[in-house]
């Protein structure tokens, strides 16, 4: 550093163009915008994504505030009030086969479904992302070892794999989440590995190494920032898959146990009553469909806003 400092001190204004190159003056009107701010800018000008993001926000809020919003106790049964249509005695969305209030159960069920949608994706992002970055950055044998193991999991269809794992471990919410996490780790790992491999061969990694940075520092400052975007986009698209799969597990009796309200489970038990109160029985399915499609469209919008070649 001493050379630079000494020379800078001896030269009061290095911008004065002494070396034959004029100091660069960009157009003053050019706005300097960071990556995340430019993503935010593009998102703000995407009304479709914004609208669906608002719906997602509503669903999340409704689930969070279920205790305050639910008009009835979601577990309170009633022999005489079974399978009643919309609006029956203050039950805005009717009642189920045990006479429990559908609106309350849908609100509470949202908590379970969203939890089952988000938690496995978070776990898979952490574990799969970490494995992918390690495999991608180290390359060679480490890469082969990690990615071939992932390929073994890839060989099974995701639904089958989730059902098999959840079935082998027994039902229950925790096991269901574990099963979904295991299903999501391989694709997540692949996304992170691809992004890392692309970055690893670029010169700025070599330049960082030439500056004296060790592998961990390079990963932390130069790799993660570039891998985060694709991983985040993929994770957001996995949430809707996870909601669907979780509902499927519950539907098959491998996820949440009754009487806990869960959209998949509700759909499963109400399907026998579809000829009695068809609209009421369709509600959990509608909830799953709307949530899943909203997450999907928001993730699509994010992809458009974030996946820019720079």
């Amino acid at each position, binding site marked *: 550093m*001493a050379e*630079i400092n000494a020379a800078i001190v001896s030269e009061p204004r*290095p911008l004065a163009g002494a070396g034959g190159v004029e100091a660069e003056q960009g157009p003053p009107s*050019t706005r300097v915008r960071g990556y995340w701010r430019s993503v935010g800018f593009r998102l703000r000008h995407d009304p479709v994504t914004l609208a669906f993001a608002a719906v997602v926000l509503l669903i999340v809020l409704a689930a969070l505030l279920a205790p305050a919003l639910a008009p009835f106790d979601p577990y309170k049964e009633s022999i005489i009030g079974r399978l009643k249509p919309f609006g029956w005695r203050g039950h805005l969305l009717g009642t189920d086969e045990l006479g429990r209030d559908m609106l309350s159960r849908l609100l509470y069920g949202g908590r379970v479904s969203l939890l089952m949608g988000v938690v496995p994706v978070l776990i898979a992002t952490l574990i799969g992302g970490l494995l992918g970055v390690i495999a991608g950055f180290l390359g060679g044998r480490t890469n082969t070892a990690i990615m071939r193991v992932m390929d073994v999991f890839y060989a099974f269809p995701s639904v089958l794999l989730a059902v098999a794992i959840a079935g082998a471990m027994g039902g229950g919410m925790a096991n269901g989440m574990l099963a979904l996490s295991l299903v999501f780790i391989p694709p997540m790992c692949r996304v992170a590995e691809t992004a890392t491999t692309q970055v690893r061969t670029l*010169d700025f990694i070599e*330049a*960082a190494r030439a500056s*004296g940075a060790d592998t961990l*520092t390079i990963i932390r400052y130069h790799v993660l920032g*570039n891998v985060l975007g694709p991983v985040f986009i993929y994770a957001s698209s996995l949430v809707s898959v996870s909601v669907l799969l979780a509902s499927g597990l519950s539907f098959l009796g491998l996820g949440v146990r009754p009487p806990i309200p869960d959209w998949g489970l509700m759909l499963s038990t109400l399907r026998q009553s579809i000829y009695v109160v068809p609209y009421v029985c369709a509600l959990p399915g509608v909830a799953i469909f709307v949530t899943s499609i909203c997450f999907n469209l928001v993730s699509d919008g994010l992809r458009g806003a974030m996946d820019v070649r720079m």
Partner: protein
Amino acid sequence: MDQLALAPHDHGEPHQPLLIARDLKKHFPVKGSGGKAVQAVDGISFTVRKGETLGIVGESGCGKSTLARLLLYLLVPDTGELVFDGAAVGDGITVGALRRHVQIVFQDSYSSLNPRMPIRDSVAFGPFVQGKPRGEARRIAREALARVRLDPDLFGPRYPHELSGGQKQRVNIARALATGPRMVILDEPVSALDKSIEAQVLNLLRALKRQLNLTYVFISHDLNVVRYLSDRVLVMYLGRVVELGPVEAIYARPAHPYTRALLASQPSMDPGRRIEQPPITGEPPNPISPPAGCRFHTRCPFAEALCTSVDPPLPLWTGPPSHIAACHLADRMRPARLT
């Protein structure tokens, strides 16, 4: 004495070479070929004197960039050693210390900057990982950006995609300077730039060298650029040094037929000197199995029986002033003057 006062790291005398490369070799094994290897760099020795610019020229694929990476230990040489200012790397000084003193600027200005990092952070990264606190690293980055004539306030917060190719390459130069190196390896720094921008960057490099008392290793396939910037020139062919000497001697009286061919293949501005026949034909031989004897004999218009069997060592021919070449026939070719 001024030079010494400006270079507090200096260990030896001004006459001690800043970098000595001894018999550097790097072979890349080819998978599934049963032990064959690409002989990218095959026994290269040279010295870089303090304060000089050593130009390295050669065709694509002759091992120039591999050599650049070997000099920084970004690739570990199979054999050979580097001596930096009297201290052998791995013995006298560590690889980490070498990287504090030697920095590199790559050809591809786009991929040498992290697209998700504002350029001031890219520049500050070097000082930061070398132990400077964040604030200090940022201050150094500002100075380095100002040095390459980019306003730190205007350009510091920008991202690489908001800069032109020339600006990006200046950021790369600033990044290399930020750690306060004594030597900078320039691996085709202007090859990807427009001619007008190229001149700007070359002038900047010249000015920086003078101001900061730097030593350059300048790698290029552009002979004009090398001539403009270099004090001495090293000519590479298929992983070997074929000729090494002062820039004027090399350009005026090339001793090796390959150097002659390279110089003759430059487009001439003078229609009277235009040549119809390409001075050198064919592709360079496969570096996996280089020809026996002189590696250039397959393309050399003067090749004799001797050339096909005996590999000429580098200082086979020595001329004044410290101009050397690896050619059996260099003496006979002396009368041929090019310029």
